[in-house]
């Protein structure tokens, strides 16, 4: 499948602090790609490097087949952007800003513009200084989503939106995806990421720590097993891949790494299983594990070794 964004080993430093530390990111054509990470992980910096607003210090970057720094203006005609912090001209109205940005991108779809203004319930006659945070966000969203482009870069696009408008936003993103467009979505709202994204990348301290589909991510993480057995499960703690065993009489609960699951089941069969539940980690648990300080960077590519 064609890739729309391809970052390999991208480095960006601000003075002594390294914002991006050999970051890898691949976004394929036609997908909604979630881009997650704790505050200060380098998400906005990554997007600004992709836009050619910041110059990378090292590594390879391809955007829509071009170089994001060298070909910035030409590439920007094929993408639309919603900044993380929406700063607008205080003395222009929302409607004027939408048209201005549209005109500078080479025109926008008038019909979709008015349709989006209506769906987002935006009053385009107010001046930007009078807008609330959520309304400023809507101006930026309409300006970007009314553009008929191949790629949408959305930096925390739904921050400040009320739940109804946030739902509308999700609908619009799905429509864009169905139209074959690619979307890079940076967000902290996990339900939104889970509802919209095909694949996702998690970054921490300027590095990608995880990338893949939800199924792949889940697959790579530990399964939680609760079991009640007729006989004591005894030496199970010694099996490879078993962590955090807690015993309560005939009940036991523990986590199992993906590779250890088969061995654990074989062992349990010998103990007379009376009930067993195994649960995949929720998305939230996966994120928490990555966001927490103790989380280790994968030892081998793609493998997650969390040590709790």
């Amino acid at each position, binding site marked *: 499948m064609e890739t729309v964004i391809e970052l390999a080993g991208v480095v960006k430093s601000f003075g002594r602090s390294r914002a991006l530390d050999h970051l890898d990111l691949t976004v394929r054509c036609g997908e909604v790609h979630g881009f997650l990470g704790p505050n200060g992980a380098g998400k*906005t910096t990554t997007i*600004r490097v992709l*836009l*050619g*607003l*910041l*110059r990378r210090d090292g590594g390879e970057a391809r955007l829509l087949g071009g170089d994001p720094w060298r070909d*910035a*203006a*030409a590439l*920007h*005609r094929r*993408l*639309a*952007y919603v*900044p993380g*912090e*929406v*700063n*607008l*001209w*205080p*003395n*222009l*109205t929302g*409607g*004027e800003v*939408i*048209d*201005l*940005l*549209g*005109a*500078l*991108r*080479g025109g926008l779809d008038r019909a979709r513009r008015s349709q989006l203004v209506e769906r987002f319930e935006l009053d*385009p*006659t*107010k*001046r930007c*200084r*009078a807008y609330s945070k959520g309304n400023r966000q809507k101006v*930026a969203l309409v*300006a970007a989503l009314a553009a008929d482009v191949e790629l949408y*870069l959305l930096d925390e696009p739904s921050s400040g939106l009320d739940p109804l408008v946030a739902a509308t936003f999700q609908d619009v993103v799905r429509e864009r995806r169905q139209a074959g467009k690619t979307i890079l979505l940076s967000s902290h709202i996990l339900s939104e990421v889970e509802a919209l994204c095909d694949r996702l990348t998690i970054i921490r301290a300027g590095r990608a720590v995880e990338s893949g589909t939800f199924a792949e991510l889940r697959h790579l993480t530990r399964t939680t097993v609760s079991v009640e057995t007729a006989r004591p499960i005894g030496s199970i703690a010694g099996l490879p891949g078993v962590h955090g065993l807690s015993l309560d009489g005939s009940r036991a609960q523990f986590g199992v790494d993906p590779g250890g699951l088969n061995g654990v089941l074989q062992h349990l069969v010998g103990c007379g299983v009376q009930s067993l539940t195994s649960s995949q980690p929720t998305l939230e648990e996966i994120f928490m594990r990555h966001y927490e300080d103790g989380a280790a960077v994968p030892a081998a590519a793609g493998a997650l070794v969390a040590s709790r």
Partner: protein
Amino acid sequence: MSAPAAVLTTVTRPGRRDAADPASRFAGLHRLLRLALRRDRITLPAWILGITGLMAAFTAMCVSGMHSCTDVIRQTAFFGSSPALRILGVPSGASVGGYTLLRGYLTLAVLAALMSIMAVVRHTRQGEETGRAELVGAAVVGRHSALGAALVVTATADVLLAGLVGLAMMVNGQPVAGSLAAGIAVGGVGLVFGGVAAVTAQLSSSTRSAIGLATAVLGIACLLSGLGNMLGTVTDGGLQVHSAWPAWASPVGWGEQIRPFGDTIWWPVVLFAALFAGLAGLAGILESQRDGGRGLIAERRGRAEAGRWLPGLSGLALRLQRGSLLGWAIGMLGFGVVFGAISGQIRGAQGAALQWYTRMGGSDHIVAAYLTSMLEMAGMGVALYVVQSLLRIRSEEAQGHLESLLATGTSRHRWALSHLLSTLLGATVLMLVFAVSMGLAAGPVLGVPAHLLGELIPAGLVQLAGIAVIGGAVLAVTALTPRWATPLSWVACVSFIVLGPLFGASLGLPGWAQDISPFTHLPKAPAVAVSYLPIVAMVGAALALTGAGLGWFRRRSLSLPA
């Protein structure tokens, strides 16, 4: 279900409660005061020391320039007998200190007023616009605490300024009482305009328009005092001028009517203090009437779609400078008409003034020299407009607007050039407004109407070559070092003006220093025929600076807000 009724009965009108407890309206004042001092610990001392230094330099210049009593008498008398020069000040007897004020008072008073306007707006309207006031106001802070802190800090700065300006004259050997009166005249204007800014900060909802409105009031005050002096009655051959009533309608005029180094009267000091107190009280009343974050002048609704002019970069750049361009155009129109109307009286110029005009205007023909020097002055004024307007490229970057723009199909080059070109277009309009209005006003007086416009318009446009160099310099500095763009651009522009023909020769600066200023090299049209070599050289320099700026701009990362 009696609860709702009980709630209803406890509701009191917020205005009344506010009035009942005056102390709470200033809660947290001392903390905000310390915050304001902390934020201004560099800015205000820089302003105060800068103005004081300027006064010391002016005084030293006049002390060293006057060799005898005859010099003082002749120069003062010339100044007093020229209505045009009386716009700048009013003589009250012959003295070195008095002559210093004639030459320098208006500049110092305007600077003091600007210092106060910016300080007050910085601690009031700017906080509301950026949302900081909301954060602060949610703490135990009274409704008027921010305004109170802003006014206390500004008033303190103006009192200090008054003392230091007086000191600057004293160390140059001027009489103590006169020096003190001069300091008070400068600081008093600053104080009053601190009060004016406190009111405009209540009226308008943005920092820019609060400063703009207060500056417009300052412009009117300067015109009124100038007009009063122009229309005044001259006695003692120009050594004494009794100003007409408009001078008394302006705080800038009060500073002059104190008449330091003449028959000093002290009671206008009370006018300063009373007007300041009145304006501060008015601002407080207005502040109780309005919602936080809003101005009293209601925001109008705007267009739901961009008009025909806005889409496109130049449209945006023009739109952003529209308000200030309009203000400048009105100012240029006013000055053009005034300078044109008095051009007939310049024929009587003699002595030092004749020398000054002929040197600056580059001709022995006094009227041509006068018109030329007025065009040169207008060109330097428009250079200030160019710096102010073009520094938008810095603020657009710092405020993050640029992020959205450059994420569209806009290249950095096109964006920067759109600002440069629309600023130069604005500068062209301003020079034309000045040249045409001066020509139309001077024509009937001099008796050569049609001929005059044909000469003044191209002569005004010649100034644009020097202005373009400054535009290129602002672009280059912003591209090279965004953080220092604002101070460096202003320093460059002001030095070009000081080294140029308006001051350079009078200050006795060496030739090589004067050569640094592009204004030194411009042909002195219409007094002297236009030679094209300097114009080509200036345009070349402007293009080189622009090219270098664009090159640097292409190479660096943007410095956007986090």
